[in-house]
């Protein structure tokens, strides 16, 4: 009697257990499907862009200016503009971001003042990108009188990616062991010498990764530079930085109006004419391709440096 009750109980337990294990299996399946769906969408997105834009991938597309005829329109002004903006962004954001990170990791005392800087960096990372555009419109375009220029756009994007550079640099500086710093101090090095000769060389990988990720974010940002008033129809190039006459280098391009890849793409997408959708797709494929390559590069660098360094 009691033996049969026990076996009944055991039977119920076993059935319950196999059911619970079935749920486990189902969840693994669901998890895999969700993940594969997300990755598949990324693949579909890229393939779709390349397919829609395939007829535009010609040499002319890169060497023509925007045009009212879809077949003759190209991205010359856009890619030149994007390259120059990225140059300004990198030149401004990287030194400032790395310096700020060094300060926070190596120099800053633990007090309320440092806490304020840290909170600011965290909060800035969460500010919507279009708000940076408004800041730039009010501050750079009108107060500093930079106008709707490459310099204004570059500075805006530099502020936008500053938190990314700071956070990445801090992480890689933090991963340098204390022992290395103490060994250098023990030999009489000052704080800056320790930082410059020991900490920074070891964190190069992380800094490079942060820089590339930041720039890959900046290259696709559209909203802030629309807000400062980038023109979408530009049929001339900014003045070349290299001149044939003395002093051979000109900074006039910083003040020139511009267009950029994402702006050009947005302009084409928002036209009702179907022919322009192919241009938009082609520009999008190039933009997405650049972003993916930059991200892949960042992952590769991180991997290389992690493998090379053995503490």
């Amino acid at each position, binding site marked *: 009697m009691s033996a049969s009750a026990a076996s009944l109980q055991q039977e119920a337990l076993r059935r319950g257990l196999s059911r619970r294990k079935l749920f486990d299996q189902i969840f693994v399946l669901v998890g895999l499907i969700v*993940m594969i769906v997300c990755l598949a969408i990324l693949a579909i997105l890229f393939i779709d862009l390349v397919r829609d834009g395939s007829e535009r991938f010609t040499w002319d597309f890169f060497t023509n200016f925007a045009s009212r005829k879809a077949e003759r329109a190209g991205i010359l002004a856009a890619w030149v503009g994007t390259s120059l903006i990225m140059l300004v962004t990198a030149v401004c954001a990287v030194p400032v971001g790395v310096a700020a990170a060094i300060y926070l990791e190596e120099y800053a005392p633990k007090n309320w003042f440092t806490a304020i800087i840290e909170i600011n960096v965290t909060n800035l990372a969460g500010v*919507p990108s279009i708000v940076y555009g408004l800041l730039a419109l009010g501050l750079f375009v009108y107060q500093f009188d930079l106008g709707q220029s490459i310099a204004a756009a570059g500075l805006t994007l530099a502020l936008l990616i500053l938190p990314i550079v700071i956070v990445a640099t801090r992480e890689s500086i933090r991963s340098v062991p204390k022992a290395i710093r103490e060994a250098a101090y023990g030999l009489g090095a000052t704080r800056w010498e320790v930082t410059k000769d020991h900490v920074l060389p070891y964190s190069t990988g992380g800094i490079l990764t942060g820089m590339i990720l930041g720039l890959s974010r900046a290259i696709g940002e559209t909203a802030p530079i629309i807000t400062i008033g980038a023109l979408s129809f530009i049929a001339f190039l900014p003045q070349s930085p290299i001149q044939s006459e003395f002093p051979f280098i000109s900074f006039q391009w910083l003040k020139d109006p511009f267009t950029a890849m994402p702006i050009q793409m947005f302009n084409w997408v928002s036209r009702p004419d179907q022919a322009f959708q192919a241009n938009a797709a082609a520009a999008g494929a190039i933009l997405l391709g650049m972003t993916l390559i930059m991200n892949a590069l960042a992952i590769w660098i991180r991997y290389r440096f992690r493998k090379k360094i053995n503490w």
Partner: protein
Amino acid sequence: MTSPTPTSVIPRSSGLRYRKVRDRIIEALLLAAGLVAVFTTLAIVAILLYESSAFFEHVRIVDFLTDTLWTPLFADAHYGILPLVAGTLTTTMVALLVAVPLGTTIAIYLSEFAPHTVRETVKPILELLGAVPTVVYGYFALTMVTPVLQWFMPDLPGFNMLSAGLVIGLMIVPYVSSVSEDSMRAVPRYMREGSYAMGATRLQTALRVVVPGAFSGLAAAFILGISRAVGETMVVAIAAGMQPNFTFDPRQPAATITAYIVQVSLGDLPHGSIGYQSIFAAGLVLMLLTLLFNIAGFSLTRKFREAY
């Protein structure tokens, strides 16, 4: 730099002083770089408040908050922010309905079930979803998602908040999943082992021990997702249409706060006009909305924080 004699008691003292002075100067420069972040925040607040205050000299705050029409560029100008806020909240809601279940499922799978190699391969690829330029996502929403949705809903207009929201949701999946996963992995091993010892399966452990234990981290992940969705611009500007429309129905076209700012910026409004000032007022509302969600999230995280 050279010492007077090799046996000097304090050799290279001038060199040391030089190096110390140099260190001081460098420290000041580094601090200045750190202060750029503080000044950026101050400048954002100052610019938004300054331009908005000019706006509110023309528009009564009561009208701004209660009027259900937003037509600042028309002859018959109305300045009610509600339609834009409604558009923003609707797209955000749709985005969250996508991102929270997908992101959490992926996070639980990666943290509790996936083998090490799968996790290390999938995570960086997944992060690419967040790196795709938003203008490309806008194209995707307009030319691919909307037509697919129109198979199921033939009445769906070409511009609608549904497809924009769905695509934004997809875009923020990696943000939600990576922060959630980090917080789940921070739940100590022994809690899982205790649960296994009681006879729980992996899924039961994940849902009843790990998820509650990591709840504050999950809340932070959702807040991050909300902030992204509220501030997202290009997808809604391209796929949701740009007419302000006071509705919470995602099948309708509508403008969000961000889309309005873009729309005005595309035109050529003179500096100092009321239209120019209105985008700063809209930006101020956007910042306050983000702030509100963050404060809510912060108090939530604090309430559910588990200490080990």
